């Protein structure tokens, strides 16, 4: 009896210590994000207050408003807009560009890699064994080696300063890994069901769409998530490929805020929050898959 009580007490102490450690670690790791959220919700006067307030004393959407509408200081009435003053009024355009580019490259990358991986695992021809390994090597190449020659390719295709150059650029960095992921995935799907349908007279295309795709969904989701994260986060490609301010994605656009003499930290933190939100929403939906599928795939791959 006393033994059980003891172990019960021990269990409680242990749980308390563990929770305390978890809370501390989580607080430290999440602090940068909380701090940026807190800063972005303060009025400008409170941002620079000493001592700094952890939780805003006064909540305000001032920062977000000036991010989306632009601020008076950036316009001098009656004159043209001054290019060096980091115009936040492009924020919505940048946001749209990032969304379009991320969506486009993800769709292309996933479609191409799914088709290719299916072909590699179901048909026999020369090269089917080394293509997946070759594509893994592609994934390990540093993007710095791509970016300049790829830029010259875009020049030849007439796509510079065009969102298509980014879509194709991101396809080039996400495709190898998506391909690897889908290849590993298709190898795990048994072929018997397909073969039965084929013998019954269904066409290959029909089998692919009606039987294979539904089974491949978890793999497709993992590849899409990977592709979205990479495309949404890229800075280097956009920095080299795009040179007009309206065509920029968020990553490069937002860094323009640093160019003026005066750095507007409130604006900066509001844009940090806005850039994180879409991925945060995605993350909440896919968190479970991340550990189960993506982690295992990455380790085994």
């Amino acid at each position, binding site marked *: 009896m006393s033994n059980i009580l003891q172990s019960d007490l021990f269990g409680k102490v242990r749980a308390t210590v563990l929770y305390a450690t978890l809370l501390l670690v989580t607080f430290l790791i999440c602090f940068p994000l909380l701090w940026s959220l807190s800063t972005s919700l303060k009025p400008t006067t409170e941002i620079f207050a000493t001592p700094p307030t952890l939780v805003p004393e006064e909540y305000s959407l001032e920062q977000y408003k000036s991010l989306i509408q632009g601020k008076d200081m950036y316009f001098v009435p009656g004159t043209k807009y001054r290019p060096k003053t980091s115009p936040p009024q492009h924020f919505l355009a940048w946001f749209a560009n990032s969304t379009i580019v991320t969506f486009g490259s993800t769709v292309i990358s996933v479609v*191409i890699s799914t088709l290719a991986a299916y072909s590699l695992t179901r048909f026999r021809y020369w090269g089917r064994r080394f293509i997946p390994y070759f594509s893994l090597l*592609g994934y390990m190449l540093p993007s710095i080696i*791509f970016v*300049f020659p790829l830029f*010259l*390719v875009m020049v030849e295709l007439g796509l510079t300063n065009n969102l298509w150059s980014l879509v194709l650029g991101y396809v080039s960095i996400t495709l190898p890994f998506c391909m690897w992921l889908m290849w590993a995935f298709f190898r795990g799907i048994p072929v018997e069901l397909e073969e039965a349908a084929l013998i019954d007279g269904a066409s290959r295309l029909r089998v692919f769409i009606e039987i294979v795709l539904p089974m491949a969904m978890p793999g497709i989701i993992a590849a899409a998530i990977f592709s979205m994260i990479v495309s949404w986060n890229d800075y280097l490609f956009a920095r080299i490929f795009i040179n007009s301010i309206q065509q920029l994605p968020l990553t490069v656009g937002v860094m323009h805020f640093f160019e003026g003499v005066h750095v507007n930290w409130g604006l900066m933190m509001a844009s940090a929050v806005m850039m994180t939100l879409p991925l945060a929403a*995605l993350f*909440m939906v896919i968190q479970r898959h991340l550990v189960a599928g993506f982690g295992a795939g990455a380790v085994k791959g």
Partner: protein
Amino acid sequence: MPRGHSYSGLSDRQVGILFIVPFLVTAVVFIAYPVAQAVLMAFYSINPLRPGDATFVGLDNFYYLFDDSLFWDSFIQATVWTLSSIALQTVLGVALALLLHVPLRGISVFRGLLLFPYIVPTVVIALIWRWMFNPEIGIVNHSLMSSGLIEENVYWLSTPTIAMASTVMLNVWKYTPFVIICVLAKLQTIPLELYDAAKVDGAGVWQRFRDITLPQLKEVLVVVVIFRTIWTFNKFEEIYLLTKGGPGTSTFNLAIYSFEQSIANLRMGVGAATAVIMMGVLLVGSILYLRVFRFAEEES
């Protein structure tokens, strides 16, 4: 015979081969061709503003690199940056994964929160870091000052050694979750019987970790460390967005060196030669990776 034939006029095998064509075309035009170009560019003198008139210079770009002390500094800094980031990530990653593996109520919430940094865009982290570590108005200096740990403001991003430490911190913050994800996935597959048996034998917590958990994790850790090393060695954005390689050149790694040579010094050939050297380092890494992978397969 499948009915599909009649209208498409393609045999089943032809359809199958057609499926891989988009991949091959894309891979050749947007991956293989640029890489081949980059390798070629390493033997030319090219001004990015006039890419048309390039002159063949043989190995001159490589000689230039070997004579440039900044290249070697960048190489060393890249190595220091990579090794310290990887060491910290691995140790922290394993520790946190073990912590997150404990079956407690609400543990999945903690898991979610601790994995979150992995998906935060690098630009966002750089923005937040520059705000938090701002010497005059940043929260970090303020907290350290008011708790009496420092006497005067620390210039986190403009003192050479501390700037390096700050970039390492950013990298560790962002990528430790990757290690956690991989280790956690593996921990979930270790049979609990192993621990029960050890408990019966009277093994303590540390002994169980050393004799059961660590050997089981070995394989995953080898792979994770190689992957992370390769990626970290080539990182560009993490450093560029936080310090632009500065102060001076104290946080240059090879990717930044290559970028600066190409863009600021207009020596695209030298930049390409740097990238070729990086690729060589990478290839060795990849071969190493495949060796380890095969080795692990044979063992199991």
